[in-house]
């Protein structure tokens, strides 16, 4: 299994380091996790946050995060992260303070496209994190894969199916959304549009895996969600390092 969305660092009441994530992965039978920084390491102190996820060991792959308002410095940091083996870009428009559609963010998306990186973006509360804003960007960059982090959780859930429909390169991170929401995307758009994620340490592997179990998916769909889609999107061979 590949977890497409774990979080490392310290943010308000959440904290998780690589050793603890590995313990949780082992307990749940997860082979590999894709992690992004949280807290100051994601919002302002990018070098520290990115190092945390990029140097966490072979079973944890890192998503680089930068605040687009840093301009050229942000692009330099992305280049550094690429050299350290980053497998994609993470953005949190609400915490980092930008509309996904405003020009300040464009160079960051262009850089992700240049590197062939998928872009995981946290969606949820209205204003900056509107899932429909992410869909706009996904349509503007049709060759880049975008992932709706948290799936619009909680009160943008009703926009999720149409957003996914509107952009073929937009996928759902299932780490925080309830089973019925996941099922609707699988039924309407296929299991290839859904990624298993844990949102550890906010959510728990056990909770997400039980939610997926209750969907009673066929083996191919289950394998796609738990492993194959992430392997394809993040260009991870196998599932074991």
């Amino acid at each position, binding site marked *: 299994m590949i977890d497409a969305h774990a979080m490392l660092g310290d943010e308000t009441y959440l904290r998780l380091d690589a050793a603890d994530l590995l313990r949780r992965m082992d307990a749940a039978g997860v082979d590999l996790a894709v992690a992004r920084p949280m807290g100051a390491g994601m919002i302002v102190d990018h070098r520290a946050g990115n190092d945390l996820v990029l140097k966490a060991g072979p079973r944890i792959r890192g998503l680089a995060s930068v605040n687009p308002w840093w301009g050229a410095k942000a692009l330099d940091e992305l280049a550094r992260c690429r050299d350290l083996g980053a497998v994609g870009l993470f953005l949190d428009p609400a915490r980092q303070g930008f509309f996904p559609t405003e020009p300040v963010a464009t160079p960051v998306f262009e850089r992700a496209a240049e590197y062939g990186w998928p872009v995981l973006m946290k969606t*949820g509360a209205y*204003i900056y994190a509107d899932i429909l804003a992410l869909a706009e960007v996904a349509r503007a960059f049709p060759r880049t894969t975008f992932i709706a982090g948290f799936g619009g959780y*909680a009160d943008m859930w009703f926009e999720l199916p149409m957003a996914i429909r509107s952009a073929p390169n937009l996928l759902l991170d299932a780490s925080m959304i309830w089973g019925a929401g996941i099922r609707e995307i699988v039924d309407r758009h296929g299991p290839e549009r859904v990624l298993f994620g844990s949102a550890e340490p906010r*959510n728990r592997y056990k909770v997400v895996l039980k939610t997926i179990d*209750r969907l009673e998916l066929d083996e191919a769909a289950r394998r796609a969600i738990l492993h194959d889609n992430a392997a394809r999107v993040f260009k991870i061979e196998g599932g074991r390092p």
Partner: protein
Amino acid sequence: MKILDFHAHLDDRWLHKPIPDASHMIAAMDRFGVGQTCVYTMMGFYADTPRNNDLLLERCRRYPDRLIPFVTVDPKEGPAAVDELERCLEFPEFRGIKFHPWLQAFASSMLEETMTAILKVAARTDTPVLLHDGTPPYSTTFQVADLARWVPGAKVFLGHAGSADYVDPAARLIRDIPNLYGCYCGSRPGDLAHLVETAGADKITFGSDFDPGSWELLAERLDNTIEAGLSPEDLEAVLWRNAERILRPSGS
């Protein structure tokens, strides 16, 4: 362990989608060991609240030991809303009051006089008032928490204890406002641990938000609660003891 679900919905449809009858809710409760469930309207948020209150009461009377109805009124109606609340509270089955300001299209601050009158009725009758929270622009966690300050004798619940994005403010507000409580309903294990640690286990209740057509949601919300790593005493408080203490006394 005993479980009392403080937040669920019972109606025959939501918008155009039909919902199975209450027997499906009872079956889900039996399956997951839930003894009693507090239920709210769905269509009554949009129109004709008196009729929907009557329908909810009728549905609950089929399962008097299992389902606890909450009354909903439309505060945009002014004094008529207070009259409707008084009418419903004549029925001992109604043991709580539910608002959904986002769906009901009002900000409490727009209707200060009526909401104050409603909260005073709630305080006088010892009836908890639960409001959806976590959603701008009418149901932010701060908007709902402020109501508790208006009438300190009323017990006010954040219906989702901060929901997705307001968990930390919710925890601090519940801690700081004596008559403010949180219904943990939809948040995740890491959120519940923070709510209990910050606000105290005696101010948090479990809620699922499920309806008779969505048993999976009840299962998921119980998973969230169990996986938060609470002590047995705190888990018991969250799963039923607080709700039992705070609900309007049965038969009053």
